[in-house]
């Protein structure tokens, strides 16, 4: 059994607002539906660890992972849902593929942004610019974001607070609704399951607040 540890992964869960009414409608009417599927898009610079992360979550060995030159869609199954995560390839410094990111966003219901906490200042800055573009993109700004600060096990990794500050992710900067953050160790699908539960709970509580 190939064991690939991504070690400590710190979560930030950002919530803006959502619409999950159609899912709730499906749930409450008619015969039990097949497992609902949610489409998520996973972005981040090359080398941040997106492919490895998704492979491990799908119980697949992350051997033979080459830089993604297009997209890679992985269906992550849970008991009550399937998350279709579309990971977008990007080449460091190459604008050619990043400019197509926005074409990929159509139909997405959530965003996972992966960054390498141990990368150089320049790369972190590039990642920050990409994250901020995504946060402001008309198709994405209304979606929940999950930001994963990866490679925390490397000596050069910035801490949670440092990453948050560098990326201007402090609540006061963005005026965002902060759902919370927690530390946990990556183990199979547990992480995305936790995320899924949090997103669901948060969406429901948001709906109540809105009314």
């Amino acid at each position, binding site marked *: 059994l190939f064991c690939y540890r991504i070690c400590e992964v710190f979560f930030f869960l950002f919530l803006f607002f959502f619409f999950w009414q159609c899912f709730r409608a499906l749930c409450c009417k008619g015969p039990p539906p097949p497992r609902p599927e949610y489409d998520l898009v996973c972005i981040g610079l090359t080398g941040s660890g997106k492919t490895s992360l998704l492979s491990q979550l*799908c*119980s697949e060995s992350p051997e033979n992972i080459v830089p993604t*030159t297009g997209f890679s869609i992985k269906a992550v199954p849970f008991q009550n849902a399937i998350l279709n995560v579309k990971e977008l390839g990007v080449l460091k410094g190459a604008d050619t593929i990043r400019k197509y990111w926005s*074409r990929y966003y159509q139909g997405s219901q959530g965003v996972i942004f992966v960054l390498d906490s141990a990368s150089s200042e320049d790369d972190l800055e590039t990642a920050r610019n990409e994250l901020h573009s995504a946060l402001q993109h008309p198709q994405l700004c209304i979606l929940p974001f999950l930001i994963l600060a990866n490679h925390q096990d490397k000596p050069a990794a910035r801490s949670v607070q440092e990453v948050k500050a560098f990326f201007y992710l402090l609540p006061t900067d963005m005026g965002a609704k902060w759902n919370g953050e927690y530390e946990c160790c990556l183990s199979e699908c547990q992480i995305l399951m936790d995320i899924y539960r949090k997103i669901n709970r948060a969406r429901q509580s948001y709906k109540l607040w809105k009314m």
Partner: protein
Amino acid sequence: DYLCKPEDNIYNIDFTRFKIRDLETGTVLFEIAKPSASEQDYEDEDDSGEVDTSAGRFVRYQFTPAFLRLRTVGATVEFTVGDKPVSNFRMIERHYFRDRLLKNFDFDFGFCIPSSRNTCEHIYEFPQLSEDLIRLMVEHPYETRSDSFYFVDNKLIMHNKADYAYNGGQ
């Protein structure tokens, strides 16, 4: 028979790898990869004028009967795209036993950047099959068939077929 011609694939979409795994155990059930271009002979040197219209569009599978008892299977497909961007790439796949539709799958790949290599793992949730039907499918190899239709911007650009036997290992 085929609802479009090979030439309709103007985006040069090429399927390069296919893999099926049982999601409950993680076991890879089947995997096939296309040999690289240097190993393939693309030019048809045959002067007889006969063209195999099925070439590259038809695959025959043989599985054991246990395959029909799987509940969830992950099917990974890898494909490359030519130098034109592809919008709204969508696959509709229908599986039949004789004339009976077993299941319809509809999957939207979305947008593909030019000259890209893309992979997609889709989860197939098998329909519940009765014992009688399972027995018939095992006893009648290759009478289970599928049609895969591929669309770009709602225009049909590819049609692939496959048939299946479930009497392997017997």
